[in-house]
């Protein structure tokens, strides 16, 4: 078993689609929270296979997209300091800040390096003892433990030139904020499989308990997604609301306790600013006292005042309130070669996915 091809079987998919069609009687809106789900749903044409009365909405689950302009501007300002090396995941390069982007800064000669793993930032810091290395710590709970490991190692190895621009986000409290706004009708949630690999099922219980909505933690192959939708349809038809797991091969109730303990050693929860959603309690992390010296926000650096393109509707796209097709900039001015907002930059951004597949 390779755990990929088996979950792409066409005949089983057809049977599942038929089952969804036969058992779904009422109009419903389901939100896929995770950008990786959005990409899979478009890649496999899942929207077109569902009956018209089941509508899928894309949610705020793209870490690059929800990173506020202030943090991009701070990264750009830091990159202009002569002794600084920026280490970043590739997705962040093209994200437009208020007046520049990391890609433009790199073309101007700034030392900005694309890395694949947080441990590479550690390596760069060791190889450049005379310079300050700033890792752009972007990501949800899937990525946070990997960032925590890099911080713990840096501390253990007495590395004093590695710093972190911490813009990590926590998913469950953001879903709480989204459900509380009531700006959009959500009948069920397709929950992110890999975030849940780390955090488990318990942090989502409020969705069923307080909002009476069903939710299913779902994998990313087409059969996973179809089964997740089927499980939601079944709960809705039976007037049930519980948190179920479709992605049982990697998601357990308790999550990954080792990963959670690494996060807990280094960070404590804090409010965080999300593009489009604003400042939300408990949706971010701050450094615990013993690790504060690695926080780049202690640096003295002039950052330009932050501003966004007035016509970009990224914020509303992230909440499922608008689709990219309702944006005046989409495809006309804003496209992957010239992204105006971050939802067009990230390969998991809703606008990028719409552009690529529609």
């Amino acid at each position, binding site marked *: 078993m*390779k755990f990929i091809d088996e979950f792409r079987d066409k005949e*089983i998919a057809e049977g599942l689609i038929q089952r969804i069609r036969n058992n779904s009687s009422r109009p419903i809106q389901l939100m896929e929270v995770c950008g990786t789900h959005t990409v899979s749903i478009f890649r496999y044409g899942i929207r077109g296979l569902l009956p018209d009365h089941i509508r899928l909405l894309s949610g705020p689950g793209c870490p690059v997209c929800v990173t506020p302009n202030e943090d991009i501007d701070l990264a750009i300002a830091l990159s202009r300091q002569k002794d600084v090396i920026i280490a970043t*995941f590739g997705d962040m390069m093209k994200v437009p800040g208020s007046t520049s982007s990391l890609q433009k800064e790199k073309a101007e000669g700034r030392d900005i390096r694309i890395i694949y793993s947080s441990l590479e930032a550690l390596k760069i810091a060791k190889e450049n003892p005379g310079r300050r290395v700033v890792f752009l710590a972007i*990501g949800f709970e899937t990525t946070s433990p990997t960032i925590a490991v890099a911080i713990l190692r840096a501390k253990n190895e007495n590395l004093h030139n590695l710093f972190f621009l911490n813009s990590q986000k926590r998913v469950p409290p953001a879903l709480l904020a989204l459900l509380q706004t009531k700006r959009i009708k959500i009948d069920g949630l397709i929950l992110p499989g*890999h975030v849940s690999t780390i955090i488990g099922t318990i942090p989502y219980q409020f969705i069923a308990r307080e909002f009476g909505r069903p939710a299913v933690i779902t994998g990313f192959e087409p059969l996973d997604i179809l089964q997740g939708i089927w499980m939601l349809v079944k709960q809705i038809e039976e007037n049930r609301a519980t948190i179920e797991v479709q992605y049982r091969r*990697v998601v357990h109730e308790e999550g990954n306790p*080792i990963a959670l303990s690494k996060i807990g050693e280094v960070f404590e929860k804090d409010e965080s600013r999300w593009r489009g959603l604003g400042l939300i309690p408990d949706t971010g992390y701050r450094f615990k006292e013993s690790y504060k010296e690695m926080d780049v926000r202690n640096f003295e650096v002039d950052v330009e005042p932050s501003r966004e393109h007035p016509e970009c509707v990224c914020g509303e796209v992230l909440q499922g309130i608008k689709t990219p097709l309702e944006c005046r900039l989409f495809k006309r001015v804003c496209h992957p070669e010239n992204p105006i907002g971050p939802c067009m930059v990230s390969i998991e951004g809703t606008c990028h996915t719409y552009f690529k597949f529609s």
Partner: protein
Amino acid sequence: MCLGIPGKVIEIEKDVAKVDVGGLLRDVSLDLCPDVSVGEYVLIHTGFAIQKVDEEEAKETLELLRQLAETM
């Protein structure tokens, strides 16, 4: 960004595993998932194994899916 890929553990040396991902060998940190053995599959995210892939659960899911599809 929350991309995770399954791969088969080929070799383990201290806290790093060589993992076969679609025919390519990658070094993967086992800091977050130390309790794995050669021959098992792990889910990889940004160079870290973040969970073991449970083959029994995968088989059960596939069996359930087949039943759901066949009884239509």
